């Protein structure tokens, strides 16, 4: 099975088992480089797919919690090289497939060819690049050539025509941003979200996951049937920041 198919399959399996799949976001190197591997293992044990966030100095799509986690991780010396080495060491011990979520500049600095090779070697199955829009997807060629999932992001303000093209080019799943705004913010009106997700579902042949502002089991349950999975980031990193146990936080979301 190709890496991107493994992501899609994990979402579908999660949906079948729990009614809605769970994607967990963890910032690599947060709260410390040493604590991160255990947090990642726990996240993988309780979620269907895990996003590993690559910290960046200027994360323009992130709200306060994720900004702060990236800042802390950078302060503690998190680099692409160290993160990839950690993932490689953990390969085979993690219960869920991984996605890298990173802004374009650190990925370019690492080199996309090198990233594709190392991602495959470390058991990573795909990437989410929030500042790589459809028009620049050609740049991700080394990643798509390696059959890594390139997650397509859509937002409530995306036109139907763009939505169709993004859904067509995405692999793994389509990431439907549920609120217009940065991560961690309050979501829009429930009926509006359902209508929007129904539209995204209709446009996509791969699974659709909803993210931004999902904090509780109640939020996740409300989206059952409207999409295949939910993505939880800020709420989880907030819990990590407070020293709470990732496993129980994620278990409570099921």
């Amino acid at each position: 099975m190709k890496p991107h198919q493994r992501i899609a399959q994990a979402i579908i399996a999660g949906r079948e088992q729990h009614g809605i799949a769970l994607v967990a976001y963890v910032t690599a190197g947060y709260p410390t480089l040493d604590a991160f591997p255990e947090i990642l293992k726990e996240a993988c044990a309780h979620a269907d797919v895990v996003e590993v966030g690559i910290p960046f100095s200027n994360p323009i799509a992130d709200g306060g919690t994720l900004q702060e986690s990236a800042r802390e991780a950078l302060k503690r010396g998190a680099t692409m090289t160290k993160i990839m080495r950690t993932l490689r060491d953990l390969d085979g011990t993690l219960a869920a497939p991984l996605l890298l979520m990173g802004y374009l500049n650190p990925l370019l600095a690492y080199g996309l060819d090198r990233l594709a090779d190392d991602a495959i070697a470390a058991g990573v199955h795909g990437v989410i690049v929030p500042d790589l829009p459809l028009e620049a997807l050609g740049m991700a060629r080394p990643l798509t050539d390696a059959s890594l999932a390139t997650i397509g992001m859509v937002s409530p303000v995306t036109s139907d025509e763009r939505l169709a093209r993004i859904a067509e080019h995405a692999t793994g799943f389509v990431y439907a941003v549920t609120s217009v705004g940065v991560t961690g913010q309050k979501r829009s009106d429930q009926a509006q979200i359902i209508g929007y997700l129904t539209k995204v579902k209709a446009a996509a042949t791969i699974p659709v996951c909803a993210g931004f502002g999902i904090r509780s089991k109640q939020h996740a349950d409300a989206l059952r049937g409207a999409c295949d999975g939910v993505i939880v980031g800020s709420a989880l990193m907030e819990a990590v920041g407070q020293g709470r146990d990732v496993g129980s936080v994620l278990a409570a979301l099921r």
Partner: protein
Amino acid sequence: MTADTLLRQLIDGELPDDDGFFGRFGGRFVPETLVPALERFEEGARGALDDSAFKTELKQHQETWVGRPTPLMYAPRLSRAWNAQVWLKREDLAHTGAHKINNALGQALIAKRIGAKRVVAETGAGQHGVATAAACARLGLPCIVYMGAIDVERQAPNVVRMWRMGAEVRPVTTGDATLRAAVDEAIRHWVGDPEGTHYILGSAVGPHPFPWIVREFQKVIGVESHRQMLEQAKKLPDIAVACVGGGSNAIGFFHGFLGDADVELHGAEAGGVGANVGQHAATMSGGTPGVLHGSRSMLLQDGDGQVSDTQSISAGLDYPAIGPEHALLAHVGRATYHAVRDDDAIAALDELCRLEGILPAVEPAHALALAKRLCRNRDNPTVLVNVCGRGDKDMPILTKLAEQQGGAS
């Protein structure tokens, strides 16, 4: 593509291309939420620039409110001191005190045209914030300005000017608390309301169409300078110099002379206090290609692609990236960029004060220092410097310096 072809395309107005690229630089690297807003803005801007009614309205505001054309002035005492023919383009005499008004006015008019309900802006030196606040006041648009907490302090007079004109100033304490962090926050604000808000970006940076539209509104500096040089000096300059933060005043100024191969174009970057990482903001001298704030250009960054901290006495030049069109100009060899240190800039500021009775902003003081350096070893060159802003806003910095130098009493 060869350098010659790219330069030819630039001169012929064919760049940026449809995707917003100037050769390898530029583009639109933003979250999906912003794409429709950028498309709407681009469409609105193209419509406006093709519309004779819009052009007439813009011109009217420029003449009666901004005070255009700004004068071109011969500087006799500076000329003697430098052994050169020194000409100054007096953008400091534009309304609100800097070239920033050219862009803020133009974009505010477009914001109104595309139905924006409010405007956000970022500001470093405060000049773009003041210009945007003024343009919004004139056109009746609510205005929010993000400004790094460090800049709020060092450019305090401009904060009060913004308040007085009805803008809300929001200090930014995250990140480096200077211009880069202010841009981050303005973008985050815009991501939260891309339909109701227009973001008036203040320099020739950011995602397409900003570098293009900012250049189009700043081109007036170069066009006027070209005409005024021919009228008053009866010749074009040998050397044209401007300071470069993001690069808006420089790109507009340079554009008037791009096709005149004999006019050397030079940009002065903030050399800060030293050449080490974190001591300066000299992007072209010390940077490598990278993506920040939606566009690919030269960027001060470490080997992991993390954006470096910067330092400069000039809040307006204290930014780790540069407009993509400048990256192309350097790449094709049409313009050259040099680092100028804080103390050299202050010395140049003093020289202009004492020899010509003009207090420039510390940003164009960098251009003056570079111009002086370039005049050495040449025989009486004709040099044109864009004095893009006045120094009133820098009084807190200058007061502190005067106290240190014991010259305040």
